[in-house]
């Protein structure tokens, strides 16, 4: 563990496939934790939105996975990783309006092809690593020092 790691807070939250009743609980918890840490409200909001979109993606599209929150002195990292099925075409998945979500998801107000683009919009740094058959890891980084600088 590095000196920086000693000042980091890490939390993992399991997200189950198609558990729509619980969808959003992780984002609420992340928001609560970041508030308690005294993070600026605009950064808390961006992290919470990114987490919520990641959580909805796991519920809608994945075979289950987890969201990891890591808070370091200089940045907030939200990482969502799942157990598959993987994204065949990441470029298309990142396009606003492109979605493979079923109608039942659209009836809840999601599945409009804005999830990943919204995550990217809320992030200072955003990466997707996906492999069909293995799974997907989406990482959103928000820099704490950047606000107002």
């Amino acid at each position, binding site marked *: 563990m590095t000196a920086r790691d000693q000042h980091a807070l890490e939390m993992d939250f399991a997200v189950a496939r198609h558990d729509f009743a619980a969808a*959003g609980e992780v*984002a609420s918890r992340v928001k609560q934790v970041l508030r308690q840490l005294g993070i600026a409200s605009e950064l808390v909001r961006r992290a919470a*939105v990114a987490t919520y*979109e990641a959580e909805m993606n796991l519920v809608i599209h994945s075979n289950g996975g987890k969201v990891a929150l890591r808070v370091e002195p200089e940045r907030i990292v939200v990482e969502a990783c799942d157990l598959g099925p993987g994204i065949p075409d990441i470029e298309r998945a990142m396009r606003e309006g492109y979605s493979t979500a079923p109608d039942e998801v659209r009836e809840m107000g999601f599945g*409009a092809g*804005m999830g990943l683009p*919204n995550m990217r919009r809320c992030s200072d740094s955003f990466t997707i690593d996906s492999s069909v058959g293995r799974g997907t890891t989406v990482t959103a980084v928000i820099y704490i020092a950047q606000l107002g600088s």
Partner: protein
Amino acid sequence: MDDTARPALRWPAGRVRCRVARRGAALMEAMHLKLEEIARLIRANVIAGADKLCTLDIDTACGADLMSDVLAFCHERTLLLTGLTSPQVVRSAEVAGLSGIVFVRGKKPGDDVIELANALGIPLLATDYPMFETCGMLYRAGIGGTHRFSRAEGTSC
């Protein structure tokens, strides 16, 4: 609808227009209204958060049924108007830091949604007016939209 059936649309007495500025951009004007005044204006029933009627100030609203749009384009302390009654609407409002939710065109949420809103402290109103008319009433009363923030900040999140 004839004119006599319309709610009174006027600047509430004793209130002043405020100037809203973000990050040095052009000043935009919007009216602050208490949630109670909003409810009266759009003839809404209060189904959660009645304790905030006299304390919650509203100066911005948006109308949307797509929660991803709400998450992307609504700013904190915005009042959301929607025809959607799923629990995800309340979750989205909480995550995005919205002031409250108005269900339009006579939609009523289930008990699970009301319970969630009470637990998260998010007021819920319900009006029989359709989306377009509800938005129009609030806009005419001086409530602003979210676009002025996006334009001022050059960002939408």
